[in-house]
């Protein structure tokens, strides 16, 4: 790579002079410590080429994944980028169990306060602070994990619905009034499109933190937070992939909250749906429609959404905060391909700013 400068002498004789490319220092990547890459599991991302799509670049630019500081996907007429410049889970880094995890049979769990029912295929975690690590809950047609204590951690586990939990409650389920501060990380939660009276992937959790999880193929909601009470608990979901729901005909939201009090933080996630939410997904829905309250400072930001044709997603976000001083909601800096969006990008009373269509490289109007 060189710079060739044409020169001309006083007598009209031409020549050229060349220079190497100038050295341009890259400032520290502003996203490096924010977008989740730092603690992501090694391995190939599940949807590594998802954004290598000619739809997500300006005309004349080769399809590719253009991360910071590339300017290739910049739209000078809008001042926006067609693609997120930050790393996206499932695309730029993998999610799920960390490599090297040696999975164990759920029946082998031996932790005080943790009850294992081999015949019922259920593990009930009743010990506060218990850590359930490296368990393959997909064995034997599927096991459930019931959380009935606070500060439990589920890490590097594999869940998948099957014959044993078809038609039952969620495979990771909670006592929805007293159990808070659950952490689920580096885990696959696969609903396998199993139908039933209640088939959310995760249900009745009363506030939780999710990190680096692949949450997919539920017939009903992917994450369902329920319970009662006016003491707000945090729902903190970051660096996770929400992939396909409702394909078996259910009404499947990516997140739904019930009749309790919540504060939501939803950042740096991927929602990727290729179609088929039976009765229309309502996306990440955190509002008061089910009798709950949404209080404090709520934020849904830096998420990436790819909706294939027929995804049947009514809206991607719904964030409605309850009235009262200090209750705020913000939906900002999200990137979306809304091909399969059949109503609105976002609903609710939250502010909506700097959300970008990956199809146009322009801001999605607020609603």
């Amino acid at each position: 790579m060189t710079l060739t400068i044409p020169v001309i002498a006083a007598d009209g004789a031409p020549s050229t002079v060349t220079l190497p490319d100038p050295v341009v220092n890259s400032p520290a990547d502003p996203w490096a410590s924010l977008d989740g890459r730092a603690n992501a599991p090694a391995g190939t991302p599940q949807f590594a080429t998802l954004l290598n799509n000619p739809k997500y670049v300006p005309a004349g630019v080769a399809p590719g994944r253009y991360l910071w500081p590339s300017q290739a996907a910049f739209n000078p007429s809008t001042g926006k980028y067609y693609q997120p410049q930050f790393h996206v889970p499932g695309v730029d880094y993998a999610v799920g169990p960390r490599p090297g995890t040696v999975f164990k049979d759920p029946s082998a769990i031996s932790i005080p306060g943790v009850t294992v029912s081999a015949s019922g295929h259920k593990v009930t975690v009743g010990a506060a602070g218990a850590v359930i690590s490296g368990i393959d809950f997909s064995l034997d047609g599927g096991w459930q994990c019931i959380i009935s204590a606070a500060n439990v951690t589920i890490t590097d586990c594999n869940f998948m619905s099957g014959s044993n939990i078809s038609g039952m409650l969620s495979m990771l389920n909670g006592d929805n009034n007293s159990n808070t501060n659950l952490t689920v990380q580096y885990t696959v939660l696969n609903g396998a499109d199993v139908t039933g009276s209640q088939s959310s992937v995760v249900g009745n959790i009363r506030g939780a933190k999710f990190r680096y999880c692949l949450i997919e193929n539920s017939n009903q909601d992917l994450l369902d937070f329920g319970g009662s009470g006016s003491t707000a608990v945090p729902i903190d979901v970051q660096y996770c992939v929400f992939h396909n729901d409702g394909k078996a005909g259910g009404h499947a939201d990516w997140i739904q909250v019930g009749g309790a009090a919540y504060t939501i933080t939803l950042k740096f996630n991927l929602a990727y749906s290729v179609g088929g939410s039976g009765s229309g997904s309502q996306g990440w829905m955190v509002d008061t429609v089910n009798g709950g309250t949404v209080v404090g400072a709520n934020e849904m930001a830096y998420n990436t959404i790819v909706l294939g044709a027929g995804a049947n997603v009514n809206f991607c976000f719904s964030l409605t905060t309850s009235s009262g001083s200090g209750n705020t909601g913000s939906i900002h800096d999200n990137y979306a391909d809304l091909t399969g969006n059949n109503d609105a990008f976002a609903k609710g009373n939250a502010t909506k700013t700097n959300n970008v269509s990956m199809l146009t490289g322009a801001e999605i109007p607020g609603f």
Partner: protein
Amino acid sequence: MTDTFNVTAAYDKPSYNQGDTITATISGDDVLTQTFQGQIGPLAIPVVSADGAQETVNLPATTVTVTQATPESVVIDTTRPIVDSSPTPRTWTVSANKLSITATA
């Protein structure tokens, strides 16, 4: 007549931060070498001896070659494009005196 360019270019800084103005300046000259041929003579040189006798020495005509090297100024040729072969080519602007170009890092 030959032109020998002794022109170099240099950036004004060893490195730049994004958004900085990059300036590259040319310096040096072009040496124009020209060769002239001419004739000397014929010559008739009067000589005189110590006793006053006079004579004339004749030299025949001869051809001589004169080489002249002349430094000439050099500027950027605005009729030809600046070729930036980097993966992300920049837009370069030539200064009014045609001795430097600038772009944004």
